[in-house]
């Protein structure tokens, strides 16, 4: 309880000062707005559903990009992890592309796809693929060699090797990479919307700012904060549960 009170003390004090400062005319309304106005704008954006539509547009692009990144990252990562020779040949080319900041690709995907879901999703995919790929390659490389012996003895075809042996053995660590990527996907999607793409929450914030509705902008910022925080908490919980499960599995 004391922890909770202490944790909430500074934000509560800041909001109280903000509200009174704004009512006393010390804080200019056009930049600071006012917490009570922001709360009204927040409720209004939910009442007319606009914020939910924007949220879906952002989440849709983040998920699409993440899905592509997860599929590609796991596939290529598994191949590189299985074959050290392949990794030595292909690895340097991959390392050369990896340091490109994902946002530098925005003009490029805009050129290719125009505005909309696709250009955003591809930038997200580029940003999200690296954690999955690197973790998968490392995890597959670290698989117990005896498991490979087993699959060779059973003469499993490659597809069922992948499905029955390699992926289950590496999954615990792959999940860690996926978790990092999910977090990145939301951040990158919002960034693309703020900079160029006219859809979603990021664009909503920019429009609210430019049309002199700071209260709406702050409401969307707060909502984005809640989304990011919720996603983070959910992923931490899920990872904890997964590790409990995977850990128990590994003991057997």
């Amino acid at each position, binding site marked *: 309880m004391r922890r909770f009170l202490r944790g909430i003390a*500074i934000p509560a004090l800041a909001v109280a000062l903000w509200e009174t400062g704004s009512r006393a005319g010390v804080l200019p309304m056009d930049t600071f707005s006012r917490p009570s106005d922001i709360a009204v704008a927040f409720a209004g954006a939910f009442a007319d559903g606009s914020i939910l539509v924007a949220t879906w547009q952002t989440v849709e692009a983040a998920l699409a990009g993440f899905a592509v990144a997860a599929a590609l990252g796991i596939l290529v990562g598994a191949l590189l992890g299985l074959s050290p020779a392949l990794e030595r*040949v292909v690895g*340097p080319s991959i390392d050369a592309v990896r340091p490109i900041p994902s946002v*530098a690709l925005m*003009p490029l995907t805009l*050129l290719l796809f125009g505005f909309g879901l696709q250009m955003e999703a591809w930038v997200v995919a580029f940003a999200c693929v690296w954690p999955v790929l690197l973790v998968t390659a490392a995890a597959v490389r670290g698989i117990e060699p005896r498991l490979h012996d087993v699959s060779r003895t059973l003469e499993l075809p490659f597809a069922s090797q992948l499905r029955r042996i390699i992926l289950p053995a590496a999954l615990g660590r792959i999940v860690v990479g996926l978790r990092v990527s999910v977090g990145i996907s939301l951040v990158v999607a919002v*960034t693309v919307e*703020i900079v160029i793409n006219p859809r979603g929450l990021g664009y909503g914030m*920019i429009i609210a700012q430019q049309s002199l509705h700071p209260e709406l902008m702050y409401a969307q910022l707060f909502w984005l*904060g809640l989304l990011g925080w919720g996603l983070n908490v959910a992923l931490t919980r899920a990872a904890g549960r997964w590790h409990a499960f995977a850990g128990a599995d590994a003991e057997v």
Partner: protein
Amino acid sequence: MRRLPQLQWLGAALFAAALLIAWQLLAERQIISPVFFPSPSRTLGELWRQAAQGELWKPLGETSLRMFYGWALASLLGVVLGAAIGSSRAAREFLGPLLEFLRPLPASAIIPPAILFLGLSNEMAVAVIAFGAVWPVLLASVHGFASMEPQLLEVSAALRLSRAQSLAKIAIPGALPEILAGARVSLAISLILAVVTEMQASQPGLGQNILLAQRSFRSPELYAGVVTLGLMGFLINHAILALERRLLRWRAAPA
């Protein structure tokens, strides 16, 4: 099982060359559109022209400087705040939940409010970069300061070191490895946000240049900018890795 390292290097170089040659041929035969995928020779030619005529250096310097200012501010804030939070439970309890809420917030989401307060200015860009880049350093230094060896604390008490002395001689060197690792991640984030703020707020630099190149369909210029940014990302990562090795040489000494 040992193979010649030269052979591996050759294989890797051949693979990369094969990719580029395939791209070159496909673009020259117009099988892939040279507007969207200009041939590597045109991109490299453009890059060479920019470097030779000196057009490259100004935006490169502007982006680097912006990135560096934001990163320096983030590192300073991160270490100071991290030291406070890491060594005081009260600070952890008061600030922890607030920081937990702010941390997952996409850094670019504070661009609109930052524009409101600071306008489309360089200060705005630096503030946004610092906000986004502070987290890795902050978390690393919180952890570094919180996990100090209790024996070292006893030593500093026995030597009657003042608070500042014990900070400078014991706490900071102890936390340094983690702080540097955090600072490396922060620098990569700083580069990304420097590009983002240049595009959004029309600040001069590489980010703005590639956006302008796209708008006028000058795709070799666009690709040249992307290549430059990739090189920058690669170089800063390796520069700070080298710095880490240098600063942390004492740790490698045999125990």
